[in-house]
């Protein structure tokens, strides 16, 4: 079962929750860090890296000896990545989505695709025996969803019932790539107007994708707050509220996790996963 930990707003505690969930469910869960533009779960988990694997995309290259400058590839490219200027075809790799359309449409067989490394997966075993898989997008590349999808496809170190997915913030294509195909989503937010606004965007996206979700409110100062008001009004479930607590922040800053401060939450964090099962 795949469970994504997502949010609209960044900095609400996705990674904190994901890492704490892994600690609380170490024998039955693995964690994919799919926040590939800035993965950071590894900072909070004592681990040994077992292996690396490159994530590659196919990028077209033109053979100038075969190219007749007909312009069919320019027309075919839905990503505006190709232009013909002077007597050359210019391909802007950073805009290419590796659809392969240009290579197929070329009547002269002048376009061939070659793999280009855009990111890396690194597989680790944590001290608690659980698996951590980290996806990292290479600097200068923009195809974060491709790295996220590769991370989700990677073979697990061992089969476990739960795969946790730490998702990127926002509600753009990276968010969609991380949460799609999951069986359940935890939306982590905070009780601020900004947190509420972005929660609504994330909820709208998940409703569109018909994905079941529950809300988790972090750093609350009161059991009733603007998130609980919203959730009650809309009939959305809130499964956990985590209090504002300086000790949690201090521990996090030292690379510790939620359970170091609140070991009593372990039972709740195990139940959270059980409750996701239909």
């Amino acid at each position, binding site marked *: 079962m795949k469970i994504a930990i997502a949010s609209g707003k960044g900095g609400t505690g996705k990674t904190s929750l994901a890492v704490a969930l892994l600690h609380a469910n170490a024998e039955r869960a693995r964690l994919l860090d799919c926040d590939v533009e800035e993965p950071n779960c590894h900072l909070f988990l004592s681990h040994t890296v077992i292996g690396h694997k490159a994530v590659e995309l196919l990028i077209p290259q033109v053979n100038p000896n075969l190219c007749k400058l007909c312009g069919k590839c320019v027309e075919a490219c839905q990503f*505006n990545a190709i*232009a013909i200027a002077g007597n050359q075809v210019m391909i802007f790799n950073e805009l290419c989505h590796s659809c392969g359309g240009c290579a197929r449409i070329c009547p002269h067989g002048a376009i061939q695709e070659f793999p280009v490394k855009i990111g890396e997966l690194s597989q680790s075993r944590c001290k608690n025996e659980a698996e951590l898989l980290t996806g990292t997008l290479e600097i200068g590349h923009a195809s974060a969803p491709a790295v996220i999808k590769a991370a989700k496809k990677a073979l697990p170190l061992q089969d476990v019932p739960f795969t946790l997915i730490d998702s990127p913030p926002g509600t753009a294509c990276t968010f969609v790539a991380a949460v799609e195909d999951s069986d359940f989503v935890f939306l982590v937010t905070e009780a601020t107007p900004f947190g509420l606004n972005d929660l609504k965007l994330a909820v709208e996206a998940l409703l569109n994708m018909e994905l079941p979700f529950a809300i988790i409110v972090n750093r609350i100062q009161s059991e009733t707050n603007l998130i609980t008001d919203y959730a009650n009004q809309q009939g959305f479930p809130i499964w956990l509220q985590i209090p504002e607590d300086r000790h949690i922040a201090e521990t996090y800053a030292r690379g510790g996790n939620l359970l170091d401060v609140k070991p009593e939450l372990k039972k709740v964090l195990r139940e959270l996963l059980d409750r996701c099962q239909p």
Partner: protein
Amino acid sequence: MKIAFSTEGESLESLLDTRFGRCPRFLVWNFETNSFTLVDNSQNLQATQGAGIQSAQNVINTGAEALVTGHCGPKAFKVLQAAGIPIYVAESLPIRELIDSFEKGTLLQLKEADVEGHW
């Protein structure tokens, strides 16, 4: 010789559009015939990416030998440079005035992109 101007309008009194990639059309002035044609660029208004590249392609396809616009980003600059089309920049003035300035040689020619992508 033909010269392309980015614009929202449809006449010589229309103002130069200082956006290049996402200008709605180009007015292409022909010095031989003293007349102009309008070239649609609206498909790039909604482009999610690469608007500058395809606007540059559009300018190349018009056969223009120079471009007058407000600003130009790095990718469009690269394409126009490869096609040997010089880029001149100006304020949002009527195109008729800019044709005069071009003939007098008072327009500033860009030696490199003057704005970042997604400007």
